[in-house]
């Protein structure tokens, strides 16, 4: 069962007494073949969980870096079915690394929740994060996922009150994604001490591992966050490498650059006990 893959991964990470490295890249940025190489590079350099971005024309929770990545991917013609095919290709060789599809509700809704759930299960997707589908609106999707064991990964934020965290936890599975700063992706970073209480509350109420993201770019920042969470999510810093490679006209270097950053981050996380 897919959720099992997530559970197994956190068991392993816990046994190694460290935090999980969760990485985000945009599928099809700048093309699907490069994305495939990138996924392999992430896995080979210590990414524990991979979030695969599905592009959307109106990414209202994302900062400029991920907005542009989505536009590059759409320009290259990436469709939701292509993102699923990319996941399937990766899953054919890698049976262990959890794959989370991350994006917005409309493309999934448009495909139909049932049809999407079937294709996602077939592609070896373990969970999804749909940013604009809060707990109030995701029960139809959860029903569609049930028979395949796909997780709905929920978000918690500094604005999530003590009362509300129970609502967020109810029906969540896999892990919780704790958004460290109120804002869009790639904006400012949080002081781990400021969110420690919120993260602990999320862990306690949900009984799930809690991964912290937004504003984490470097090994040093990741190590600092690792002290208070079960996992650390890095996205914009990876996506920036795609842009930098494209700007220097060197598409061939993308997987290498991204692998390099994954190495730096995973090495930094090995030094901290979670």
């Amino acid at each position, binding site marked *: 069962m897919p959720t099992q893959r997530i559970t197994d991964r956190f068991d392993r990470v816990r046994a190694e007494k460290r935090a999980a490295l969760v990485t985000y890249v945009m599928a099809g940025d700048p093309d699907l073949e490069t994305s495939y190489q990138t996924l392999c590079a992430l896995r080979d350099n210590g990414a524990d969980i991979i979030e695969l971005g599905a592009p959307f024309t109106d990414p209202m929770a994302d900062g400029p870096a991920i907005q542009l990545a989505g536009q590059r991917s759409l320009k290259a013609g990436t469709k939701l079915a292509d993102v699923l095919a990319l996941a399937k290709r990766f899953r054919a060789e890698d049976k262990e690394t959890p794959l989370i599809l991350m994006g917005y509700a409309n493309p999934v*809704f448009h495909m139909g929740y049932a049809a999407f759930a079937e294709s996602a299960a077939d592609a070896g997707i373990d969970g999804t994060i749909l940013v604009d589908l809060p707990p109030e609106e995701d029960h139809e999707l959860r029903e569609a996922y049930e028979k395949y064991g796909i997780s709905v990964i929920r978000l*918690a*934020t500094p604005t999530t009150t003590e009362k509300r965290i129970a609502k967020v936890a109810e029906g969540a599975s896999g892990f919780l994604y704790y958004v460290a700063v109120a804002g869009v992706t790639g904006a400012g970073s949080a002081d781990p001490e400021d969110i420690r209480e919120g993260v602990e509350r999320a862990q306690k109420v949900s009984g799930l591992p809690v991964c912290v993201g937004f504003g984490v770019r470097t090994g040093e920042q990741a190590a600092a966050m690792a002290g208070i969470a079960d996992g650390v999510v890095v996205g914009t810093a990876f996506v920036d490498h795609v842009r930098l490679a494209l700007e220097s006209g060197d598409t061939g270097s993308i997987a290498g650059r991204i692998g390099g950053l994954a190495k730096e981050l995973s090495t930094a996380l090995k030094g901290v006990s979670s």
Partner: protein
Amino acid sequence: MNKLNTWAQWPDEKGRFGEFGGRYVAETLMPLILELEEEYRAAKKDPAFAAQMDDFWEHYVGRPSPLYHAERMSEHFGGPKIYFKRDELNHTGSHKINNCLGQVLLALRMGKTRIIAETGAGQHGVATATACARFGLPCTVFMGATDVVRQKPNVFRMKLLGAEIVPVSSGTGTLKDAMNEALRDWVTNVHDTFYVIGTAAGPHPYPEMVRDFQSVIGKEARRQMLEREGRLPDAVMACIGGGSNAIGLFHPFIEDEGVRLIGVEAAGHGIETGEHAAALNGGQPGILHGNKTYLLQTDDGQIIDAHSISAGLDYPGIGPEHAFLRDTGRAEYLTCTDKEALDAFQLCTRLEGIIPALEPAHAIARLGEVCDSLGKDGLLIMNLCGRGDKDIFSVAEHLGMDI
């Protein structure tokens, strides 16, 4: 469905109009949306809030707006009496101020100290900047970069009123991108900022709240028509972009099943060309900007840019209550092309001495068919929701005239 308490009971407690509406926002915004709903419920019940609104509507906006018998238009179309609800005479020149005042007063009740808004043509931006100037609140307006260039007079008006204008070049630099950017600002400044949405769309409670504020249009029109003609109209009619002026006119008639509700969407270059803004006639259900509704989208669920000669209708979605009224058949939704709107703009100007905005010109363009269907003794109200001063430059350009 039951005969009574059917149409006016929506939205339900989840913010749904049938299957449409809802609260599709990121978790960071959810607590605020829930708080807003609570505050709005309290304000709605508070006689002091209602009294404050009435006072501003009367003395600041100039309400009630007249219900005017457009005799020459009626003659032109061969019979039925056409009445214009003159919301173009409001302060700032359109119906937008009805809603902005309500939301800004609510923001003050909630202790918010900063206002943001999105705007396309600039009418909602000007109305929001006006309300902010009146109450001394800082105001930031997000506007597509191309619209900033096209709508210079409104940009200048907003600046005079003290608003900060943020040109948005992300995405395709249009109204929907301005709305994305406003949502990004809101999520970042959620602690002190109130987002004044300009149309009856977005996450619950916005569609309900904007509808309620705009319903002053229909309440007045209903009362005025009963006074003038001693009976209800056979049809009420309005143009539709997001649909706030239309729902404001429709809603007080919604339980009067003998009254036809007729919306007119912008067909741009024609529905068949794909270059239009008619979400109900040329779109499919989807999820965007906090609600489930009809959207212009590709077969992969990506949002398509809208096109209309009228910047105020140039949006790929529509308020969720209209989606519901369409699917249930309670309201009818027609379309009008850019060219038909231009013709209607000129017709109304010549026959009635009223220069309409290009938005209501879309509704004017469909008066002929609607009048034919009503017969000689028919009675019709059309919402003249904005005046055309802002449009004279683009109309001149389309007509090939120099000014």
